[in-house]
């Protein structure tokens, strides 16, 4: 790569091609010093050459004929490819990515600024602008014209062989691509000629198709095949693909000779396309079974995952270990950003050890609780009692040993009950978590860091039994233990209290405030965010970090009669909804502190740190309302993420 630089380095502005190119005077000036390095960069590898061509805009794009390519580029991908990713409408994706709301946020990030200020990016950007100037168009319009027919990235692999990477770009018109290629070749050759160097481009013919590569890096290459730009990590791969295209006769409307060998005809891919819509921005399919066989060290998950993964995601982890493929799609419109991920379940279904993670057929999470001011509401189906029973199979011996100790402690905490059968067994598998805004204006004293309130709503199998009382006692024990710790640390203790909310007793605790002179000197502290509270509403037990949220949840559960009725039917195993606007409000309340932390963590000045925080706030607002759900269906598990995008600030 280093020699490539010496081969092509030099001031391209001296080459006659660039001097006589189209474009404004200022654009040509841009070509001056910047292009010196640009040409060097072009020569650094055929990938950059190809990306340069990929980014080249062309004149006359408006009156070009329809593309000579037909069908999907996935016709050219082998049926057993391990990965295939398609961007059906790159022009729309470019519009989304260059949305001012996205760019505003991105430009506030140091990583983005660093990337666009990096030498490589600046050089590539200058190449694109120089060629755009020659061809009288803008870089983004040119990019849309060049990629308008779609982009496919595919990886094909065989055991003990280098994987074959293909990037297939379909332009709106073949002439667009041809002219872009000619422009870049002219630039590179002109630069070399200006320096008295030989032609840096190696071109070979294969069955009538020209394959281009950089002479000092002839391995990777690109070709224009039937009106499409194909880039690959090896020129021999290009020959393979050309053979495939010519022998299958998929181009120019001919019937394919071996339809079964095409990725486009695979049932999983067809199903993915059928489920999608015209708004799909990206769709991808990965063959996990082949990846695990080809490179077990990299792609085969270990037998027993970490404790955290086991607790939260074990069923999905097991699925990932065994699913033959994974399909994903992203949809991105003006008003919505959505993603879906699907993993098929093998014939044997879920393993017995993950029984506690997956709801039986027809069951699922309880409905989300969303009192006023909700930032996020989460609902999870999880049978902890069953998981506890399977702990020896699920966890490593060391963790199981720790759980045995925890069993003893937790049993004592709950009045001598057995933790698994009597505590977890007394709870239904419906768990809900609510995160909510707090009214900081009414808090005395207001905390220094303003945190949201959160609460867990658990469901009891037998609300009339003594278990509810045991939970209340456990809450009081928790407050007592907190006070012992506070006494040892000379910190403020919690004072127990209670209040009636719609006929329900809300047990409360609040930090005792200092009196007299100590009160005058009191500094705001984080702990004043918390006033732990607990209540029972029918079969639901609420444990909240604040009195305010405790009250809201009582009203919500009473008002909707969800506290005593059957939970709303759902097939989801997990669901969460979040609202960006109240989240942004919380972040805004902590804006100064977040900016200060950004100053320290990223070394930014105050001005830039504040701009980053403001960018984050705008981005959170832009994301609007989000929902994530996971459904464990009989045949497959499906994850869906959806944001209803907001109009802006």
């Amino acid at each position, binding site marked *: 790569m280093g020699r490539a630089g010496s081969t092509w380095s030099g001031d391209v502005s001296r080459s006659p091609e660039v001097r006589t190119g189209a474009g404004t005077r200022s654009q040509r000036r841009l070509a001056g010093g910047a292009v010196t390095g640009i040409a060097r960069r072009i020569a650094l590898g055929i990938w950059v050459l190809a990306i340069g061509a990929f980014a080249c805009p062309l004149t006359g794009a408006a009156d070009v004929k329809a593309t000579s390519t037909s069908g999907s580029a996935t016709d050219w991908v082998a049926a057993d490819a391990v990965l295939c990713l398609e961007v059906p409408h790159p022009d729309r994706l470019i519009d989304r990515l260059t949305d001012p709301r996205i760019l505003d946020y991105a430009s506030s990030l140091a990583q983005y600024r660093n990337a666009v200020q990096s030498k490589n990016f600046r050089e590539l950007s200058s190449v694109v602008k120089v060629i755009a100037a020659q061809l009288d168009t803008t870089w983004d319009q040119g990019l849309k014209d060049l990629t308008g027919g779609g982009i496919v990235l595919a990886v094909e692999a065989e055991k003990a062989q280098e994987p074959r990477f293909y990037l297939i770009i379909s332009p709106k018109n073949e002439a667009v691509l041809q002219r872009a290629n000619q422009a870049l070749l002219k630039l590179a050759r002109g630069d070399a000629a200006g320096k008295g160097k030989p032609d840096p481009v190696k071109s070979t013919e294969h069955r009538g198709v020209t394959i281009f590569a950089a002479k000092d890096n002839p391995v990777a290459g690109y070709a224009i095949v039937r009106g499409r730009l194909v880039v690959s990590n090896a020129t021999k791969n290009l020959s393979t693909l050309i053979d495939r295209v010519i022998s299958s006769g998929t181009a120019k409307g001919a019937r394919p000779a071996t339809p079964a060998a095409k990725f486009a005809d695979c049932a999983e891919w067809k199903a993915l396309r059928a489920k999608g819509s015209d708004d799909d921005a990206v769709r991808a399919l990965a063959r996990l079974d082949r990846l695990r066989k080809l490179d077990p060290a990299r792609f085969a998950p270990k037998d027993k995952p970490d404790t955290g993964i086991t607790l939260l995601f074990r069923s999905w982890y097991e699925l990932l270990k065994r699913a033959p493929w994974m399909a994903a799609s992203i949809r991105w419109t003006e008003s919505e950003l959505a993603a879906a991920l699907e993993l098929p379940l093998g014939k044997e279904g879920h393993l017995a050890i993950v029984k506690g993670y997956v709801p039986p057929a027809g069951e699922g999470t309880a409905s989300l609780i969303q009192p006023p001011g909700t930032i996020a509401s989460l609902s999870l189906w999880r049978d902890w009692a069953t998981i506890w029973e399977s702990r020896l199979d699920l966890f490593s011996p060391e963790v199981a040993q720790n759980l045995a100790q925890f069993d003893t402690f937790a049993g004592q905490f709950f009045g001598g009950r057995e933790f698994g059968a009597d505590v977890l067994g007394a709870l239904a598998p419906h768990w809900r978590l609510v995160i909510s805004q707090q009214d900081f204006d009414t808090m005395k004293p207001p905390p220094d860091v303003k945190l949201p309130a959160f609460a867990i709503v658990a469901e009891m199998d037998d609300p009339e039994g003594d278990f509810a009382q045991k939970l209340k006692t456990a809450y009081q024990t928790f407050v007592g233990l907190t006070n012992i710790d506070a006494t040892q640390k000379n910190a403020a203790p919690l004072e127990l209290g209670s209040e009636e909310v719609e006929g329900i007793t809300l047990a409360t605790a609040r930090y005792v405030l200092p009196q007299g002179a100590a009160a005058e000197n009191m500094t705001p502290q984080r702990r004043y965010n918390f006033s732990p509270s607990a209540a029972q509403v029918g079969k639901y037990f609420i444990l909240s970090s604040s009195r305010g949220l405790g009250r809201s949840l009582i009203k919500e559960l009473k008002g909707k009669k969800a506290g005593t009725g059957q939970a709303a039917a759902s097939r989801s195993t997990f669901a969460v909804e979040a609202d960006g606007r109240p989240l942004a409000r919380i972040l805004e309340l902590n804006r100064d502190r977040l900016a200060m932390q950004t100053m320290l963590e990223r070394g930014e*000045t*105050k*001005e830039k740190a504040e701009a980053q925080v403001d960018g984050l706030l705008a981005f959170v607002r832009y994301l609007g309302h989000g929902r994530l759900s996971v459904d464990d269906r009989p045949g497959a598990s499906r994850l869906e993420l959806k944001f209803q995008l907001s109009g802006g600030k």
Partner: protein
Amino acid sequence: MKDPKTRAFDDPAWAWSAFEASSGRRFDLPAAAHLHRRAGFAASWSVLSRDVADGPAAAVDRLLAGAPQSLDGSPAAEFESTMDSMAAQLATSAALTDLQAIWLYRMIFTPHPLRERMTLFWHNHFATSMSKVQSASLMQRQNDLLRTDALGNFRQLLRAIGKDPAMLIWLDSTSNRKAKPNENYAREVMELFTLGRGHYHEKDIQEAARAFTGWFVIKDRFKEVVRQHDEGTKTVLGKTGKWEGDDVPAILLKQPACAEFLCKKLFRSFISETQPPSDALIAPLARAFRESDYQIKVPVGMILRSNLFFDPAVRRRRVKSPVEFAVGTIRALEVTNPTVQTSALAEACVRMGQSLLAPPSVAGWQGGAEWINSTAMLARDNLALGLLSQQDQALGQRLDPANLAAKYKFTGRDQRARFFLDLLVQDAFEPKAREPIVQAATAKNVDDDTATRNAVRLILTAPEYQLA
């Protein structure tokens, strides 16, 4: 590293006279860089160039007064206000590394490097450690106190530090009862803070401790409990009276040894840590200090303006502390847009042997040769590599040496090498030692960027660069 005997050390009158540039004794780049290494944390090329052009008097005046703008471009007062606010908000629940990060951030961008340098000096003088105080807000409060009086009045600083909760916790003096006077603070205030050994007796400590009775720290606040104060007569350093705690600093400051003790410490910090000054050399400095009623700026200004300070014989007679090395490198190389992650820098300083706000003992860091050992040198090299790295997300990716050189019109490879030699080490290298730097910068088998980075790395890891 033994200092040669020069006229400067033997002739106090000449030594403390104001330096004036002449044809034989120029105020050139090495002199300006020396001034900033000692009185700040090294300076950028633009600052050095400006000071060389303006002369020593203007350069010293600017250091004593502070710049109108911080390195982040904000007005000085606004920057100080932002930093005070950051310290107040973040220190409440901060870990030691966070506190260190706040201070290092301040050092990097400060418009008043001399004040931060003096804050560091007083931190080492009144050495107090978070390891025992265990309160980030109290450590930060002490740091703020040291900064407020860093170039102010030592009398005021001494009185305030005696009531500083962090100091009293550090010296086990949070409950000083008349029935059982605690002698720790009384001992340290004489031995380490004002007089030095040999200028007091054990009896003086015991009597002073009685004067401090009634001083308590309750709920992180200093409080005088009158009923616990010993109201009897005490004799401290020959002065008898019904002394209270506030009377002791005045008695100590009247001792001739006090100003001499402090001026010797300033001498070690600003002039040389290898050659102890003679009493005769210190006497004029101490006299001026006393006569100004202990205005700290007086001896500091006198030192910075002196013939002795600018004598080439005293250059590089100190080993840079890790903080000087780290902050100085960052300021000189203008790694400020953005700067490094300062918590990572704090950790690097710990690895180099200096954990800010956690000195090893009540006597602070020994400094000098103590900073240099194989582990610490490896840590210094690693910091230099980190700063020059394009992968290290916390410390690297911010410095583009070739770009920095180009900013000052040093564009050719050999020009770049000379630029960094002049910026970072000036005349420290023998001609032969400069050759590998130039060779690295002009190496033909590597690209411009890599060659420049290699050259800067060689300078930063050279023994000469470790000296101030």
